[in-house]
């Protein structure tokens, strides 16, 4: 059997922040490969650089040096506009605080990334419906975020991340604001995305139980990979 193709290739990646006159090294010469369909749990204490690494892979932050190839594209070389398009087509985001737009229904929130595509209304509707069904939220499609529970909001956020059919889903502490039951649901959905839909999922978490849902865990400490 052929080895799975790498979807993310990181080489000698460093990120240094300037805080006044002090230089803070968030990532220190990181190299990492991630295969397609992998569910990677990025672990580490606060300030270890795990979110920074996630942001660089997802194209919302830039490294100070090094390479970050995602599906063969060096995202560090793209300009702002190219990165925006690239993110829309290739990356789905799930955040700790859900970040749904409060004035839009669950359906409309999920539809939001599709407004940037050339899809017609009917096609958008089909894709949104499919994404909501995938996360088990079809019956709540026309509820506003304030009418949903935390778990339901996060499921809507996952549907929004999936609706453009990206290859990579990044989740930054997605269970941090959920009760244990809802957290299990959300992690189960992310796991099935990796196992059944072949999506590459990168999960940032403090929680070893959450990390256990992943196919691989890596630990960061003071900007370095420790294991």
């Amino acid at each position, binding site marked *: 059997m052929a080895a799975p193709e790498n979807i993310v290739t990181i080489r000698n990646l460093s990120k240094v922040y300037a805080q006044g006159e002090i230089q803070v090294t968030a990532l220190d010469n990181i190299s990492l490969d991630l295969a397609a369909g992998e569910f990677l749990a990025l672990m580490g204490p606060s300030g270890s650089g795990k979110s920074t690494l996630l942001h660089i892979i997802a194209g919302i932050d830039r490294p100070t040096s090094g390479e970050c190839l995602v599906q063969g594209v060096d995202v560090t070389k793209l300009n702002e506009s190219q990165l925006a398009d690239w*993110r829309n087509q290739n990356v789905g*985001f799930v955040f700790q605080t859900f970040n749904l737009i*409060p*004035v839009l229904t669950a359906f*409309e929130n999920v539809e939001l990334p599709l407004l*940037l595509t050339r899809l017609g209304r009917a096609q958008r509707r089909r894709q949104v419906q499919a994404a909501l069904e995938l996360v088990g939220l079809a019956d709540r499609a026309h509820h506003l975020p304030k009418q949903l529970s935390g778990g339901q909001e996060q499921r809507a956020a996952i549907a929004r991340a999936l609706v453009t059919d990206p290859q990579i889903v990044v989740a930054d502490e997605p269970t941090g604001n959920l009760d244990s039951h809802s957290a299990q649901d959300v992690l189960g959905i992310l796991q099935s995305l990796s196992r059944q839909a072949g999506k590459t999922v990168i999960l940032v978490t403090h929680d070893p139980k959450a990390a256990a849902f992943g196919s691989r865990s890596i630990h960061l400490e003071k900007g370095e990979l420790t294991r």
Partner: protein
Amino acid sequence: MNLPGFIIRNAFRNKRRLALSVSSVAASLFLLITLQVALRELTNPISDEGSSLRIIVRNKVSLAQPLPARQLQTLERIPGIVAVSPFSFYGGLYKGDEKFTSFAQFAVDPARTQLLLADAKISKAQTEAWIADQTSCIVGRMTTDRYGLKIGDRMQFTGQIYPCDLELKIAGIYHGTADDRNVIFHQKYLDELLGNPGTVGTWWVRAAFAAEVPLVTERINRAFANTSAEVRAESERAFVLGFVSMWANIKTLIGGISIVVIFALLLVTVSTMSMAIRERFRELAILKALGFRRRELFAFILAESFGLAMGGAIFGAGGAWVVYHLLNIQKLTSGLFIRFEVTPRMMGLAFSVAALLGVLAAIAPMLTVARTSVVQGLKTLD
């Protein structure tokens, strides 16, 4: 859902703030239009066909200085003049119980004013009755309507400039002039009450042709040059504008207030937009992460800001148009303003100011959004 729909939803998310912001823009634009209309009405005298032919001749020293009545003979000999009459502003208080009388009273020579009052519509019988009775007057319809006066009624005035009071019998009611408010009575009656001083306030002259007015005014000025009572002749329009200019620099005053109104409007709009964007900063970062580009976010902000300002313009400028169209402004201002017309140019000004404000108010939030990276925006989340 589509992008315009998304923008509208965002704009209406805080309905109270939106209503207050639109109202403040609307109120400011209403005020701006009101000031502009007032300025226009004060500095742009109403004119009719006759006014382009009329010339006012006053003492060169001051409007308050009278002119010798003997100048009449000289004036009558000047070529290009078809009618001339004394025209003395009496300036009395009607009934003696008002602090401010909203209409003027002028003493004239009735027999000589037929051509000068060519715009006035009044029956021949009433004119003849007026000419025949030295203590009678004719009154503009606006004034008779306002005070419920009719022919035969008596009007009493307390002198404020001249040391005499008047009691006038209404012989006729005229209309059709640009200002149907004035009371016009006999100069001879005023002269008698004053003991025949041999003076008049000003002269009212009618030129044969409008094109000759500059030439005739020049002739009049020359005719009395180097006499004991030099005169200043000018067209009726120039005279009225000169009169307005005596109220100090009203244009500068109203212009200054208008600028302050616009500046306050700018602060309100910028503040509202800054607040609206600041509280949505996290969402804008999320939209960026989802793939929305700067130009799309700029378009959201600009559309919202522009919409807010235009909403204010519709209510403010549109409201001013409706209000001043429906109100009886003459009655409301006790005759200070005869009309109060919101012109298309003023509507255009209000909408242009609103459009400019909409754009200016969007600049600061757009710069903030442009400068902030997705990660910085997301950091406001946790």
